[in-house]
């Protein structure tokens, strides 16, 4: 079981690296925000898998916190993009 969970964590790490590459590469602010939203979901997946791996509740607390923070960040950035475009017009 632990071997399977290690492989799953490796796949999730690959997905996270691909997403980070998208954020780092030259792209718009909206693209980066969408990629960041995906990154929080991938990290939440990894935290759930590692909670099952060690049979402990600690990663789950982090997952709840990450979910709230990711949502607040997404809303804040979206509102920022909207207000900035409103000023330009």
């Amino acid at each position: 079981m632990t071997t399977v969970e290690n492989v799953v964590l490796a796949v999730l790490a690959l997905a996270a690296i691909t997403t980070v590459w998208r954020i780092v590469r030259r792209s718009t602010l909206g693209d980066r925000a969408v990629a960041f939203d995906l990154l929080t979901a991938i990290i939440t997946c990894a935290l759930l898998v590692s909670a099952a791996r060690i049979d402990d509740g600690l990663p789950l607390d982090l997952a709840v916190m990450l979910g709230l923070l990711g949502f607040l960040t997404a809303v804040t950035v979206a509102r920022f993009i909207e207000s900035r475009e409103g000023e330009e017009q």
Partner: protein
Amino acid sequence: MSDVVRTVLDVISIVAFVVGALLALVASVAMHRFTSTRSRMHATTKPATLGVSLCALGAVLQLSDASDITKVAVVVVLQLVTAPLAAHMFGRSVGGK
């Protein structure tokens, strides 16, 4: 719990983990393959939500403490409630791009 039931639960949990991780990988590849911000949002938000739900299913079958299972439920509900809201805000802010 008998060994047979445990094995069946393990197999279901493994399948859920693997499918969830592959969905996350597909979503991250779609970030690069799609051309506009809105099509990228379409390609990333849905697999991410389903991936988190499947990983949560796999984790629930492995965890032994009832309070841990409740926390997993909180994580899933949080993801299901906030993901459409965030996607809506993004969709409104990026306009037709």
